[in-house]
């Protein structure tokens, strides 16, 4: 064994021992939403109905919020109809950010969870990171706080359950903090989706635990008196990624694979090697 390998092994062992001494669970490995295992087309294996049932979807929207949601869904249907005709309904934007809470609830991404005594870090294949501070600190003071797509999270351990408290969330694609937070659920067919809107004051409480060695579970409660008539409870379960045992990342750079030409989408496969291998 080389010195470098010995040093690496020692570091890993010390880290593991450190976590064990702190009484923290071992959640190592890569995780994905149950039902979000991709196929070669990028598809998923759950219908919208299954996803909604799994999530216990049913936001208790206030009437004015539901009216806004209905308008959004109707607008989206028109947009999807235009896309289905191969038309470009508007200017393109670029983003590779899911943001919270979507990244926990209905994303196709895989992630790792790294519990340490003072912080648990969740790292996603979109290169998004959630920092959950468990060192007893309070939320960031208001005069230092601004909304971000991942919010401001603190947490504590109740036995082997990580309890996370998150505030100051804004939509990952939003242009304004005042627009609040969108929560979306998808099925396995393009256009099969639903959405609700939370206010910028939405407050999220999660309880993450490992019910068995191959699953993690996230019980999420959304408290948002501005938009909801009551707290909204959701569940999500994650399973181990089967075929890859390291993190690899989505890369949203250079996304010109489907440029719009004369108002219609077309294909632009990446350039091949300088010299053909044939």
């Amino acid at each position, binding site marked *: 064994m080389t010195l470098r390998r010995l040093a690496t092994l020692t570091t890993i062992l010390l880290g593991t021992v450190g976590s064990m001494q702190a009484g923290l669970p071992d959640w190592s490995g890569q995780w994905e939403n149950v039902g979000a295992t991709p196929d070669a087309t990028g598809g998923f294996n759950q219908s919208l109905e299954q996803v909604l049932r799994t999530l216990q979807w049913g936001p208790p929207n206030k009437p004015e919020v539901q009216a806004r949601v209905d308008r959004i869904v109707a607008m989206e249907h028109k947009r999807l109809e235009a896309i289905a005709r191969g038309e470009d309904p508007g200017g*393109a934007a670029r983003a590779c950010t899911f943001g919270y809470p979507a990244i926990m609830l209905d994303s*196709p991404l895989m992630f790792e969870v790294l519990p340490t005594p003072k912080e648990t870090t969740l790292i996603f294949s979109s290169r998004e990171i959630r920092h959950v501070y468990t060192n007893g600190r309070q939320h960031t003071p208001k005069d230092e706080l601004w909304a971000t797509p991942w919010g401001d999270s603190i947490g504590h351990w109740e036995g082997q359950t990580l309890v996370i408290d998150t505030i100051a969330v804004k939509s990952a694609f939003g242009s304004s903090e005042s627009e609040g937070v*969108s929560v979306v659920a998808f099925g396995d067919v393009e256009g099969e989706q639903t959405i609700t809107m939370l206010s910028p004051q939405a407050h999220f409480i999660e309880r993450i635990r490992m019910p068995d060695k191959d699953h993690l579970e996230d019980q999420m409660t959304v408290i948002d008196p501005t938009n909801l008539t009551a707290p909204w409870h959701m569940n999500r379960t994650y399973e181990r990624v089967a075929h890859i045992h390291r993190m690899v990342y989505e890369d949203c750079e250079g996304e010109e694979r489907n440029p719009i030409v004369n108002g219609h989408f077309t294909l632009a496969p990446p350039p091949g090697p300088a010299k053909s291998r044939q």
Partner: protein
Amino acid sequence: MSRLLNYAVIVLAATLPASSLLAHHSFAMFDQSKSVELRGTVKSFRWSNPHVFIQLLVTKEGSDDEEWSIEMTSPEHLARVGWKPGTLKPGDKVTLVIHPMRDGVKGGQYLSGTGPGGPLIGSPQPSQGEGK
């Protein structure tokens, strides 16, 4: 169908003015109502972000080969179900089932396939039937 792509579309619609759209992340250019079977030879297997492409040379009797661009999902997604950068190699004889482009361009969205070793990863096994 890609939920990752779906996601981007509706979230933008929900939060930005109606003129905004993550257009490059839609599969709408493919005709989801049609499935086409292509037999050919792999020219290249482009393990690239954001999506992987198979460049396929389709033999046409009495004329030159046609080159088709077959779009798959991201390397991250493919790796999670067992694909690797070398799963397909130039010269491999394959049969691919795709959703073709709506506008007649020689391209499509990958659905399933059969390669030198049998069904490609994630494709129906022979006993299950291709169904396409």
